[in-house]
């Protein structure tokens, strides 16, 4: 901004001019109100307060009390204030002016009003006072619906960025936990905040993240996933390259692990990056229950991963290309049940999978009251009636049901939907070339995963650059005593100013 335009943008002495200009900009904003009041001896001097009733709480008494402190500099009160005395108070800008902020330009006034400030303009004074008020009531802190836990904290993030930051700060009370702010969008001006633990986060990763995210300031960011779309390496990959959570304990654990978390105003989703494939197989709750049990659950999740990806295609491959692999008694039972079904195995699988997907989508969109009816109807339709109408065989229903259940058992929704997507190429490959086709798509998937990077780090960290030491937290969960001497814990101890154990 040149000095000229700054001059033209600066507040005038004349309150009428100021008020007219403000009313022009805020025209048709029905929630912006102008309140005129007078002060001084005989109420000779004018003042106007501007506020947006949707954002600011005008009825608060705090404003009143703060205003009364201002004349204290001149050892007077408002009944004897004059504009010159007021100018002197404002010039000195002493402690009695707290918590007001001094506004000099119209830009500042617009911004402050739109951020929930009450702005007071005075006649013959070319500065305005802005008073921050409490924000309007937002959603209460509740348990996140999509990440329920039996054991552990139930704090979920809300749409208010400062409240979210409060929740996070109260978990890691360390100056090394840095928050950096960005403002994006010319119109929305939404605040983006990313946080990391200094000296624990990988500096190359942080530099890469900064490099990618700085160009987002030109785009209107409405939700955290916009940033994900912006910084991810491969938009066509079915695999998610960042993780989302609404739980503050998960986010805090991720920060301690050296990850970067990103929050956006008006969105409760915290984005954790970089995310690797192995991160999607664990939850925070694994650390709150006994290690034996959570090891068992992790292995179950691995099984669920494999089943969700390959079970229908395995069935197709076995029944059409390799009938010798099925035990004789089961095979004859399958032959019995499939006699009379008009479709080949592939189309039968496709029809059943498609109906299951439709059912799933319908279940999300329906209101709560009708949702349970859908699940019962769905079971009836897909299960019993399809078999009786000879559209599907019982074994196919079992396969589809198991696949669906397995995909629900995967804790992270993003990975589950990517598996849902990948199932179909696997089924096509199995129907074309049987076991060989399965091997080919498996190799293609593995190739894709190995060459995928998340913020510069290989996506299959701990598996592909083979590090068996990391597996003790991957496929099993070893008791915490084992981690006491781990390099990560030693780094954290050093960061906190303590000497690590020998």
């Amino acid at each position, binding site marked *: 901004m040149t000095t000229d335009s700054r001059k033209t943008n600066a507040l005038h002495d004349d309150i009428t001019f100021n008020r007219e200009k403000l009313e022009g900009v805020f025209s048709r904003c029905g929630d912006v109100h102008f309140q005129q009041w007078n002060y001084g001896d005989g109420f000779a001097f004018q003042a106007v307060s501007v506020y947006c009733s949707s954002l600011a709480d005008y009825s608060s008494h705090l404003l009143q009390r703060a205003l009364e402190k201002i004349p204290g500099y001149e050892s007077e009160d408002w009944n004897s204030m004059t504009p010159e005395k007021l100018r002197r108070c404002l010039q000195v800008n002493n402690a009695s002016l707290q918590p007001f902020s001094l506004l000099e330009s119209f830009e500042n006034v617009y911004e402050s009003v739109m951020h929930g400030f009450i702005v007071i303009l005075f006649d013959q004074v070319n500065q305005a006072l802005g008073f921050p008020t409490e924000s309007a009531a937002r959603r209460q802190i509740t348990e996140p619906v999509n990440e329920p836990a039996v054991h552990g904290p139930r704090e979920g993030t809300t749409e208010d960025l400062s409240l979210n930051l409060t929740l996070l700060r109260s978990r890691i009370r360390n100056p090394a936990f840095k928050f950096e702010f960005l403002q994006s969008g010319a119109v929305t001006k939404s605040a983006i905040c990313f946080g990391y633990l200094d000296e624990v986060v990988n500096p190359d990763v942080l530099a890469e993240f900064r490099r990618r995210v700085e160009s987002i300031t030109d785009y209107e960011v409405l939700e955290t996933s916009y940033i994900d779309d912006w910084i991810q390496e491969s938009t066509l990959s079915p695999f998610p390259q960042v993780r989302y959570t609404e739980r503050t304990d998960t986010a805090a654990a991720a920060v301690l692990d050296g990850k970067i978390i990103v929050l956006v105003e008006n969105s409760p989703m915290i984005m954790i990056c970089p995310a690797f494939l192995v991160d999607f197989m664990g939850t925070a709750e694994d650390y709150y229950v006994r290690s034996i049990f959570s090891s068992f659950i992790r292995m179950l999740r691995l099984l669920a991963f494999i089943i969700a990806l390959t079970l229908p295609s395995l069935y197709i491959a076995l029944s059409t290309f390799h*009938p010798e692999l099925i035990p004789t008694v089961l095979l004859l039972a399958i032959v019995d049940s499939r006699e009379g079904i008009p479709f080949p195995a592939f189309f039968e699988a496709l029809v059943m999978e498609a109906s299951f997907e439709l059912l799933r989508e319908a279940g999300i969109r329906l209101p709560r009251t009708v949702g349970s009816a859908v699940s019962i109807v769905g079971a009836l339709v897909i299960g019993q009636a399809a078999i009786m109408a000879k559209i599907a065989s019982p074994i196919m229903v079992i396969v589809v049901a198991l696949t669906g259940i397995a995909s629900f058992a995967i804790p992270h929704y993003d990975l589950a939907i990517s598996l849902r997507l990948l199932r179909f190429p696997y089924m096509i490959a199995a129907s074309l070339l049987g076991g060989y086709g399965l091997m080919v798509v498996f190799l293609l998937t593995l190739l894709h995963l190995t060459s995928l990077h998340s913020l510069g780090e290989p996506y299959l960290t701990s598996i592909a650059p083979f590090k068996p030491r990391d597996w003790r937290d991957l496929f099993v969960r070893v008791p915490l005593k084992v981690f006491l001497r781990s390099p990560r814990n030693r780094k954290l101890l050093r960061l906190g100013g303590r000497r690590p154990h020998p």
Partner: protein
Amino acid sequence: MPSHSKGKGWLTACCLCMIPFLLSGCWDKLEINNWAFVQAASVDLSKDGRLRLTSQIYKPGSTEASSMSPSTGSSFFNISSDNDTIYGASLMASNEIGRKLQWSHMETLIISEAFARDRNIGEVLDFFSRSNEPKSTLTIVIAKGDASSHLNAKPLVENNVGKQLASSIETAQILTGMSISVSLRELSILAKQREVTFVLPYLPFTGAGALPHTPTLALFRFPEGKLIDIVPVSKTPFLLMLMNRYRNGFVNIPCGEDKNNGLGSEAFKIGSLRSTIKPRLVNDQLTVHVGVQVSGSVKELACTHIKTEDDVSRFTDKIAGKLEKRLASTAAYLQEKEADVLGAGAHLHRWHNSRWKSLQQNWGERFKQARFEINVHVRLTNTGIDAGQPFSANEP
């Protein structure tokens, strides 16, 4: 951003990868209902000297629309086809049924005795060994009379005849020591040796018989692949003992000298039997030393009291004596047929290879002249949950 162009390249690559898939015509793909699953097969010699292949094929249950459970009645049908080769016969059978024959769930292969005596069974086995479909536990048996008649018999307890025969031979091998099951792999190994005699299970009854009889063994020789002789049922267990393939079985000891004097017999269960064959050349004559270690328990007592150490050793000596006598007569039978199924020749071939080269020319003759020294040692482990005296004994 460079990552997006890599993404584009990936899209093109994926499309290109899909094209060869779409071009493939699914040659090997066959719906599970387009297979004809063969449960058992039999090979006969037809009148004009060709092979007759009879396959027993599973017929899927009838489609009942109202029930969700698979139909309970399973059925089979037999189909015969004649050709010069097994493969040709199987294709002709596929022609008639309209579905391709699938051999991977075949339990039993029955070869008729007439075929085995006249033709080389290697002709039949070659097809099944060369194809990847048959399973490793395929049971191969030789049957008396018309092999396809066995497929028409009603199975006693199993679902189909193939499974019935396979499990009866399996049980005979494990429980009674009356037969052994020989796999395709063993036959392949045997067939690659220069000259070898071996045994195959033999069903000494036709399919149309009233009561099924115990399976026994038949002697074969490679490379001719023809049946030489059928081992008498009484000699079968002892033959298996000599081959060290005897797992479990029993020995009946008559109370008196003669088993028909009305005094009954006692049953001794053989829990484990191990025999070692040591062929030696003494002065250019082959001596085969057979040492047999037996351990078992008493299953039935009729007249013997087994209470003291002396009683036990008398009892076991009686059993050992009977075994030695029977083993000697079985060995004599083998020598008469010049059938070295014990593996004496193989033993010399392995351990004394240089000498074997000069011996193998007239091995049959040498085997016939060989001297057998048989030594049996029996150990009694327990007498069951009753004490060692017969049921009706009332002496203190």
